[in-house]
Structure formats: structure tokens, C-alpha cells
């Protein structure tokens, strides 16, 4: 039997495992609640009315607001799905049953990754479908940029998976891997990015900055609207979507290859 056949088997059963877990359905519910909350805030607080005159309420602004905010849930989902993917085999001793089989560790890691990517993508798509339904319901329009934003959101979620897999292969416990991934993305990367901005260095290569392309793809001219003086905490962030795509791909490829290498070397002590 070829490794590809084995990969299909691993992916199938890893997917079954993911669909049997409550966290998948919990993530779906949370995503839906987040979308509803953000729409309620957008309309209830009249967000477009509080922005400079140059920015008016539009399907693009609505989509930007809802998708960029609700995209946080799928990111958390990616971390929680992937955080225990490798580590739990060692921590919960399931590896004693899985590893003594004629299948390469790399096949197991790739199969687990495909399953995690599938469930994460389903949640990201679910968030966008909810947004699209709201867009059509409220504006009777569907801006084409939503699809670009969705593609970038999927690449961003994929890069989060890569980082989570790295920690899952490296650390002993699932919880440690999950926390380390969140801290890296939300704290370490953010601190570096802010420092680079203060040092007048364009942070185009940073993970979070590239992730902002999910919003910048809508082309809302925030900087022009404020005449260069953005409100505190809303400094100009308009990463190039094409560059960001490759940056996020890099944040997936490098950690994921490292993850496979580490998983292959890791011993079942």
C-alpha cells in the first residue's frame, strides 16, 4: 500500500475524530454568535456614522467590519484543533497504539494537518457565509472583495495551523502547545510588529500585518479619510494582499516542515 493510500486513511479517521468532538460544534456556535454580535454593534452603535465623512456606509465597509472581527474565532478554532494534534498522542498515550503501525510519522502529521485544515476552513467559510447572508439581507449586494478576503482568511488560518503544529510537535502537553501558539501570535508577533512600526520599518513580513490584508482587500481609504492622522491604535495598515498571501504561506511552510521533522525525531518515552 502506498503512503498516499495511508494518508487518505489517516485523514479520513482524523476528520472523523474532529467531527466527533464537541469543540467543532462549539466553534460553529461561537462563530455564529460573534457574527450576530458584530452586526448588532455595527448597526446599533451606528459605526459608519462615527467615521469621517469620506467613509460612508457600504456593503464593503460592513463586510470589512464583520469579517475581520469574526475571523478571530476561526483563528482560535485553528489553534484549539491543531494544538493537541501531535502532543496528545504522547501526552494521552494514544501514540502507543498509533505509532507501532507501518505508516510514516510524516504521513500521520500531514493527515492530521489536512483534517485540521478542513475543519478550520469549514468554520472560516461558515463565518463568511453568515456575513454574506447578512450582506444580501441588508444591502441586497455582494461585493466581490468578500471572496478575496475569504481566500486570505483561509491562508491566514492555515499559517496559524502551521505554527500550532510546530508547538504541538515540540511541546509535551496539548495545553502548553495551545497557549504557546496563542502567545506567539497575539503577544510576541504583536510586540515585534509594533516595535518595527516605531522604528519606521515596514512590517510587511510580520504575521499579524500580513493578516490585516483580510480587511485591506476591501480598499476602504481609512488613511485618506483621516487625512493621515489616524485615531490612537488605528495606525494606517494597508498591507498588499499579494505580498501578504506569500508571507502567510511562509508562516505555514516553515513551521510545518519543522513540525514534521520534530515529530519524526520525537521518541515515545
Amino acid at each position, binding site marked *: *500500500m502506498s503512503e498516499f493510500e*495511508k494518508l487518505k*486513511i*489517516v485523514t479520513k*479517521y482524523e476528520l*472523523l*475524530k474532529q467531527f*466527533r*468532538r464537541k469543540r467543532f460544534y462549539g466553534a460553529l456556535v461561537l462563530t455564529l454568535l460573534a457574527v450576530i454580535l458584530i452586526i448588532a454593534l455595527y448597526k446599533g452603535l451606528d459605526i459608519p456614522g462615527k467615521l469621517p465623512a469620506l467613509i460612508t456606509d457600504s456593503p464593503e465597509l460592513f463586510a470589512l467590519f464583520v469579517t475581520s472581527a469574526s475571523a478571530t474565532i476561526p483563528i482560535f478554532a485553528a489553534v484549539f484543533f491543531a494544538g493537541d494534534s501531535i502532543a496528545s498522542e504522547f501526552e*494521552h*498515550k*494514544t*501514540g*502507543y*497504539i498509533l*505509532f*507501532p*503501525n*507501518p*505508516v*510514516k510519522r510524516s504521513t500521520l502529521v500531514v493527515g492530521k494537518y489536512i483534517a485540521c485544515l478542513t475543519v478550520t476552513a469549514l468554520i472560516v467559510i461558515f463565518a463568511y457565509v453568515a456575513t454574506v447572508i447578512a450582506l444580501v439581507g441588508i444591502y441586497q449586494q455582494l461585493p466581490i472583495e468578500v471572496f478575496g478576503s475569504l481566500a486570505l482568511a483561509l491562508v491566514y488560518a492555515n499559517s496559524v495551523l502551521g505554527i500550532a503544529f510546530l508547538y504541538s510537535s515540540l511541546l509535551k502537553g496539548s495545553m502548553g502547545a495551545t497557549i504557546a501558539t496563542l502567545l506567539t501570535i497575539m503577544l510576541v508577533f504583536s510586540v515585534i510588529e509594533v516595535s518595527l512600526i516605531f522604528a519606521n520599518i515596514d512590517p510587511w513580513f510580520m504575521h499579524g500585518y500580513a493578516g490585516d490584508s483580510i480587511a485591506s482587500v476591501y480598499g476602504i481609504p481609512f488613511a485618506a479619510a483621516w487625512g493621515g492622522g489616524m485615531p490612537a491604535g488605528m495606525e494606517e495598515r494597508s498591507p498588499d494582499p499579494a505580498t501578504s498571501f506569500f508571507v502567510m504561506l511562509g508562516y505555514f511552510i516553515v513551521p510545518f516542515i519543522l513540525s514534521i521533522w520534530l515529530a519524526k525525531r520525537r*521518541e*515515545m*518515552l
Partner: protein
Amino acid sequence: MRESIVIEGLSKYYNGFLALDNLSLKIKENEDVALLGPNGAGKTTTLKLLCGLLRPSSGTAYINGVNVVEERERAISMVGAILETPEFYPFFTPEETLSYLGRLRGMSGQGLKSRIDEVIKLVRLEGWAKVRIGKFSRGMKQRLALAQALLHDPPILILDEPALGLDPRGMIEMREILKKERKEKVVFLSSHLITEVVQVCDKVALIDHGHLLVYDSILRLKRKYRKSLEGVYLKLTEGAI
């Protein structure tokens, strides 16, 4: 006669601690061998090395002539194993677990299905075949561990404390299964239960602090020391902790 398992100068260090020291052992095709020794002697380390779960610090091992270190997947395809206290995915049923493992071992279709039914019946889990493993006791998981080890009908069984967690009835049933399987397979097991060892195996390898103390047939050891196997064990491991 062909050698099913060959261990050549196998050593293993854990962060500077020598767990296995230059162990060499040969198990022939028709032999069933028990690995005996006090806690921390290196029994589980030996079995893990044979299954490719650990990398040896030096030395190597062969399963039916296939180098475990260099061709792990090919070597392990000839082995059914229970190692330490294995856990299963709690979201799967025994049927799903065995189906997953069977497919990974190249089984499929009706053949796999009927073999799953067969091994589930053998370990007496018929009533639990469609129940999620999350609800299982330690003993039931151990029965399932034996089922997965036998699933692909491997020529070699490597079992680390196979009766661990089983109730007295479970222990007897496990022993009966192994007594039957040893007729066609090589059984290499580690155990603290001398009664189990005497009934299932014909040879013992006694190790302590990673060293091989003795490797011989139970009969010869009993004659040589004029003691029961238990007595031999106690004599040779005197002072060991």
C-alpha cells in the same frame, strides 16, 4: 532455524541515564520468550526499541531479518504490539478503532470486517463493539489492545505486561488466548506475573539495570538452580530495586 527477533548490542541512554546496556538476544521462529526483571530493569525500553518508538543510542535490532532502525515500517508490519498502558481515541468505538488500524496495515473490505468481528469476539468485547471507548474501563481497554495486536494476524507478538489492568477472569482469558497464539506465533513479552510467564513462554531473558543476567529455557534454569522460576528470579535479582 530462522531467527524472528535479533537484538544486537542494543543500548539506550535517557539524558545520560543508561537504561539498556549492550543487550544482545536472539529469538528463534518457534520460541516464546519472557523478558523478566525488576522495575526499571529496561524491559519496556527493549520492547519500545523493537517497535521503533525509541531510537537506540547504539546497536540495532531485526524483525524477521528486517532492520528496525533503518526500515521501521517494514519491520513493524510483521508485529502486533501492546506497549505500556495504551490509550485509545475516546471518540471512536472498538469497531472504528480496529477498522482504522486494520486499514493502515493494508486490510480492507469484507476480510477486515470479518476479522474485526473475530478478534472482538476473541477478547469478549462483542457487547461493546459499537460503544465509544471513552466509557471503557482499564481492563476493557487492555482487551481491545490485545484485539488490535492480533488483528492483522502478525507472526510476532510483542507484549508489554499484557495482563495489566485485567481482573482475574480477564487474566485467565488473556493467558488462554496467548497459549493458543504461541502455537503459530513468536511471543515476546514482559511480565511481572511468573505464573503467566511459565504458562505462555518456554524461555526467559532476565535483565537488571539494563544488563542481561541470564537467557535460557525455563526448564534448564529450574534444573540449574534447583528452584522454581520464582526462586531463580529472586536469587538472580537479589538486592536489586
